[in-house]
């Protein structure tokens, strides 16, 4: 699929041979020219076939998606931006009231304007607004599971790295185990623990933690495999055992990268814990889903603003910390 066009083209010869140099070629030159033309033609054909296949797959997919969707694409297209209407509250101050659980002048006893009912009182008249509390819950789910995943991913990764675990059985077993943790749908883990533990944020924490162990473990063991083995050799020569070699030889050089990956994971976990929340896992996801479903504009907008700014804050904090830890080294986002 689209393999050929990605090879660096040998264009320079082509463009210049035909324009700058004269077309009088020796016999050998003509042969080379002809071969090159053939190659070029073949490459173009492959590119064309690849693109045609891609277009066919795409149109098949689009047809299938449209067929199995509840509303048809072209029927619903005029209504796509209806959600903007869902986001226009009665008056601008409503957003602030919804966010800080202040009483609304429009309160008619309906669920739409019952902002103060969500207050969570700490002591006396001091309260935490509902959505701040829920956002904090989501954030805590993300941080807790990142730390949890960091800890167990750290323990597992040394057993999966080729340079530290020569036994292929142990290595393969740990790697397969981490792959399953990573690929196992989070929804299922959350759903299972919802059935066992009843409603609350803990099922979401378990689900996100399990996924994080697998994801971080994989990134970690790749870092460990790229580590410089000279400190390890030194420790081995001095008679260090396996734990001492790992702890004094490998950990100091990989720790900044580990932390940086964990911070990246934190960004992803904030997002996934909000999604898990929407299916019953506690946190901000559920009020968001409910308020969009019931058409409560001010509440929806308040939650979106909170979620949006939290995500931006976490992203920036993590980028800043990563830059301090490993400098300007670029990292791919890993999910």
């Amino acid at each position: 699929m689209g393999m050929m066009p990605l090879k660096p083209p040998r264009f320079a010869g082509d463009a210049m041979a035909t324009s700058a140099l004269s077309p009088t070629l020796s016999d050998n030159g003509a042969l080379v020219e002809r071969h090159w033309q053939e190659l070029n033609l073949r490459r173009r054909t492959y590119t064309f076939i690849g693109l045609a296949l891609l277009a066919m797959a795409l149109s098949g997919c689009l047809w299938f998606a449209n067929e199995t969707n509840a509303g048809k694409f072209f029927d619903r297209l005029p209504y796509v931006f209806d959600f903007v209407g869902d986001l226009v509250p009665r008056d601008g101050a409503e957003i602030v009231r919804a966010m800080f659980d202040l009483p609304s002048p429009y309160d008619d006893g309906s669920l739409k304007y019952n902002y103060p009912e969500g207050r969570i009182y700490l002591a006396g008249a001091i309260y935490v607004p509902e959505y701040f509390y829920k956002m904090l819950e989501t954030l805590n789910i993300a941080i807790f599971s990142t730390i949890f995943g960091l800890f167990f991913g750290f323990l597992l990764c040394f057993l999966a790295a080729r340079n530290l675990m020569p036994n292929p059985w142990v290595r393969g077993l740990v790697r397969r185990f981490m792959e399953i943790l990573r690929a196992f749908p989070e929804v299922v883990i959350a759903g299972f623990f919802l059935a066992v533990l009843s409603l609350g944020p803990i099922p979401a924490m378990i689900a996100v933690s399990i996924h994080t162990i697998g994801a971080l473990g994989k990134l970690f063991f790749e870092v460990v495999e790229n580590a410089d083995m000279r400190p390890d050799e030194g420790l081995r020569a001095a008679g260090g055992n396996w734990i001492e070699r790992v702890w004094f030889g490998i950990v100091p050089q990989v720790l900044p990268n580990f932390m940086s990956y964990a911070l990246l994971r934190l960004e992803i976990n904030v997002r996934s814990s909000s999604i898990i929340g929407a299916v019953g896992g506690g946190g901000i996801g559920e009020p968001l889903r409910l308020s969009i479903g019931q058409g409560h504009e001010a509440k929806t907008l308040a939650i979106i603003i909170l979620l949006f700014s939290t995500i931006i804050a976490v992203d920036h904090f993590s980028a800043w910390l990563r830059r301090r830890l490993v400098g300007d080294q670029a990292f791919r986002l890993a999910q």
Partner: protein
Amino acid sequence: MTVNTMMNAAEMEAIAARHPHLIHGSSRKRIRSALIFAGIALYMIYSWWFFSIGQVLVNANWGIAGTYLADWVSYEVRPDIKIAPDGAMQVVYPRFSPLGPDAKPEWVKIETRMVERAIDAPAAKQQALPTKSSTFSFMAPKSAVGRSAEAEVKPERRTEEVVSRATVNYNRTTSIDVADRMVTATHNGETLLIDLDPASGVRPEGALPDWATQKRPGEKITLAFGMTGWADVDVGKISIHNRFPGWANFIFDTSSPFFNKSFGEVAGLIFAGERLDPARSNLSLAWSNILYNAEWQHLDVWTKLLQTIVMAFVGTLFASIVAFPLCFLAARNITRNGVLNQVTKRFFDFLRSVDMLIWALFFTRAFGPGPLAGMSAIFFTDTGTLGKLYSEALENIDDKQREGVKSVGATPLAVQRFGVLPQVLPVFASQALYFWESNTRSATIIGAVGAGGIGLKLWEAMRTNSDWENVCYMVILILVVVFIFDSVSNLLRSRLMGQKTH
């Protein structure tokens, strides 16, 4: 000549004294790492309190967790042995028993005899009665006493075949035998006799073994046989739960004409048998019976899985197609216009930071539940992410190639085509493949909020708490798909990126 490289203690101490910072490390650093660890530990304690984790874990119903887990890979058959007040017994299977409508399993042995019984009401009258209590009580003459509506109902005497003895053999060491209001349960060599007396309730003879529990004297006794199953023994009803490994009726459900036939029989019917349905061949009948299997819903599951794959594929493909031209605007070394760079970059940030969840919820409202919503959500989020990554890749390119192309007088478009694209296309394609693969995973989750795909089906199967075997089936399908995509994308990426480690 050998040099003695061993040092004595005094020499080592002298070195330590000369370079203390190498041996002990800086105290500031040590304090800092100690502080970080203390902070993390404090945070974990705080979270433990914030979520009251300990309490939740203690209060959890761990017993049921085991049952749910067992349900993933096994199924229960639940016959009830009902005992009427006159002592007549009946073995009843629930309506959707995995054994089909008229089951006669080998592990339930029945002895029957003919008796003359008093039956208080005709069938039509029974149904007209308010169904407050269980069906069992309608057979009891006592329940009818004192009701005005019963005045016309004449007790009728009729001769019936009833069960006089029922024996359930769970396995070689476990069995339950019921006859004459006496239950004999045997498990691992221990035998428990239970007397079912309508007046005084359930009374065990002798002490209860540890596999039997009774909350109060006279109440029902629960017999737990571990993975083999369990049973509830009550005065009027003995509920048997016999657990078998495997998935029940995975290919044909109980309403199919092919149900309960061996592979050879089915093959014979398909290739040589007479038409079961005159309208179509046996092969197409069998295939449609498989697709529309009521318990496993194969066609629906496969359609939903395909939706998930399609959502990830189309979403990522469109995202990379849209992000591709935009990233040239965002890269400051390509477009030398600070305002345009910043606007495009902030646009990418906006798309990325509005969570996929929010996009999914909005598009579900716009397009209705289905893959279009999920596709659009993935498209919007990933346009932001891919755009950011692409523009970063563009900003890191080698300028020499560009300068070379420019120096021979190429047009600006040709400079991008021949000077920039060859450097970044492998990176772009590799990133897109990586996101395609990871979106296949996240498409499962956003499906659960209604954005199409297998997520919702998984969620619904879990909600009932009784279809864990269907959950297992879908999870296996998802794992297989994810692993296939994982390896395909890894293979393509390593070919794209050459030998470079990525």
